């Protein structure tokens, strides 16, 4: 009856249910931090995330292990590394998207502005309001451009004028001029690059604190990629950004700090998981890495 899967599911459900009950409190306790939003855009030393020995398991099998790193405010932080090294798993911990996978388990300590993100009183839904996400494949809703952007503010019950929110978000995503005359047309008629910028606009519209981007340009052509990279440089004035990328040049171009992850095998080679090899300022990672494995990877000798 009590096989491990059902137990795990129950735990996840309880966590979600428990969180929902006092979500307001958790939200409040996170939001009342002074100077939390729209502070002066300076590359501060203020930490958004502090990860201590974070490990993620799927059905008991480790995907990433012992991740310890700090993510700073108004920085673009890049996660690079070969396929299967757990970059996506790691970024999905940061807004508790892993909760949606019943068998996923996160171990270790993950602080968000000093607050335990996996604490018993934290509601994952409130977390996702503050920490938005842009996915690998553009995933606009099958609705009009306007409704795509307005969806978030609507479900969150934001009271400001919706037209202003939509226009502002589309401006911030450098999409307004391209779509202002066809806000009512279906988002599926846009190009891939426009769709991805729409997803960014959708994310901005709910005024998050952090934007997580999971390989946002991997399905896009170089011109669209360039637009999104330019956008990131602007967005970091207002938000903190964490980006997963396969593309090392991209990490070098857009990020302030870079974490390099590598796959590790256990002794009998049955399990493999990701581990941080080096995490430092991007310039150092790409010009003068401390670890020879980082150097091999960024110079293209391996991977």
């Amino acid at each position: 009856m009590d096989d491990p899967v059902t137990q795990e599911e129950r735990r996840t459900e309880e966590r979600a249910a428990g969180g929902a009950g006092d979500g307001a409190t958790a939200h409040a306790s996170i939001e009342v931090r002074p100077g939390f939003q729209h502070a002066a855009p300076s590359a501060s030393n203020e930490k958004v995330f502090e990860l201590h020995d974070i490990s993620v398991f799927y059905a008991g099998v480790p995907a990433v292990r012992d991740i310890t790193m700090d993510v700073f405010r108004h920085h673009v932080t890049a996660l690079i590394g070969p396929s299967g090294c757990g970059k996506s798993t790691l970024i999905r911990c940061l807004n508790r998207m892993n909760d949606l996978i019943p068998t996923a388990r996160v171990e270790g300590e993950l602080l968000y502005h000093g607050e335990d993100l996996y604490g018993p009183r934290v509601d994952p839904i409130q977390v996702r309001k503050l920490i938005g996400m842009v996915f690998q494949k553009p995933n606009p809703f099958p609705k009009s451009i306007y409704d795509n952007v307005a969806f978030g503010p609507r479900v969150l019950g934001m009271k400001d004028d919706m037209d202003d929110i939509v226009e502002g978000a589309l401006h911030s995503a450098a999409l307004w001029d391209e779509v202002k005359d066809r806000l009512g047309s279906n988002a599926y008629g846009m190009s891939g690059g426009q769709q991805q910028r729409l997803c960014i606009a959708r994310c901005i519209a709910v005024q998050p604190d952090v934007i997580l981007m999971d390989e946002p340009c991997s399905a896009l052509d170089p011109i669209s990629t360039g637009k999104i990279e330019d956008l990131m440089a602007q967005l970091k004035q207002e938000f903190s950004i964490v980006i997963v990328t396969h593309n090392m040049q991209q990490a070098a171009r857009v990020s302030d700090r870079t974490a390099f992850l590598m796959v590790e095998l256990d002794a009998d080679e049955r399990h493999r998981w990701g581990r941080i090899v080096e995490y430092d300022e991007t310039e150092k990672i790409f010009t003068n890495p401390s670890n020879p494995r980082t150097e091999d990877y960024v110079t293209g000798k391996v991977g």
Partner: protein
Amino acid sequence: MAVTGARGVTNEMLSAQPRKDVIRNTIFASLLFLAIALALAGLCVLIGKNLVEGWSRLNLDLITQNNSSNPAEAGLRNAIIGTIWIMAFVILMLVPLGVGAAVFLEEYGSRTSRITRLIEINIQNLAGVPSIIYGLLGLAFIARAPLSLGYTVLAAAMTLTLLVLPVVIIASREAIRAVPTSIREGSLALGATKWQTIRRQVLPAAIPGIATGVILAISRAIGETAPLIPLGAATFLTFTPSPTTDSFTAMPVTIFSWVKQPQPEFQTLAAAGVLLLIALLVVMNSFAIWLRNRYEQSW
């Protein structure tokens, strides 16, 4: 020399396939064509025969006259009204129950839990239960105690709802499953709750598939005779009944009663009634197909 050799090989590779393969292909294609031809022939014979027989009575009287013991005056008016009432109640119960069950199974039920799997298997089995069994169930539990609704439109509607519920559940589940996970993730990542995601993203995207399933289910229910007979559908009703208290009739039941009559005029009438019912089904199914094609979403 080498070039001619190579060309020779190419020619050999491109030349006609062996005669045996050609014959096999032809035989197989013919068998497949025969299968579809037989299925269509059945339908054509049915429609053709009824057209020949019933053409003389296929006029407005058929739908404006109540049933009567005089075949010259008999029509389907009260049967059509009975069918409309039954279908209205069926839709009212079928849509929330069917869609609700599908949403639960797809979005809330765990894929691996034994209970969900048990429910799943049972729904599939229910779809295959003969309709007369549902009629007996309706008689035993709905018309009589515990529900004691009597032999009314409501009892008939509940019975037919149970009969076609599995069809709607299965179609709705498929429609819901076809909505990509990325849509759900996109919504959840904005801080929407699970219910907001289902209500405002998943269900709207699944509506064409759900609607198709509902229409197909209703077009099945509309033609069902067997489950209504144990429920005491009046085969011979000459007035328009009230939907909740009086006994009722429906189109297939009245047609069935005409077929049983000895007078040849009633046979003509029955043939005309069959044509009307088929026309109704064709219209509903075409609408379902149109709906599916019109709103088909390519992800």
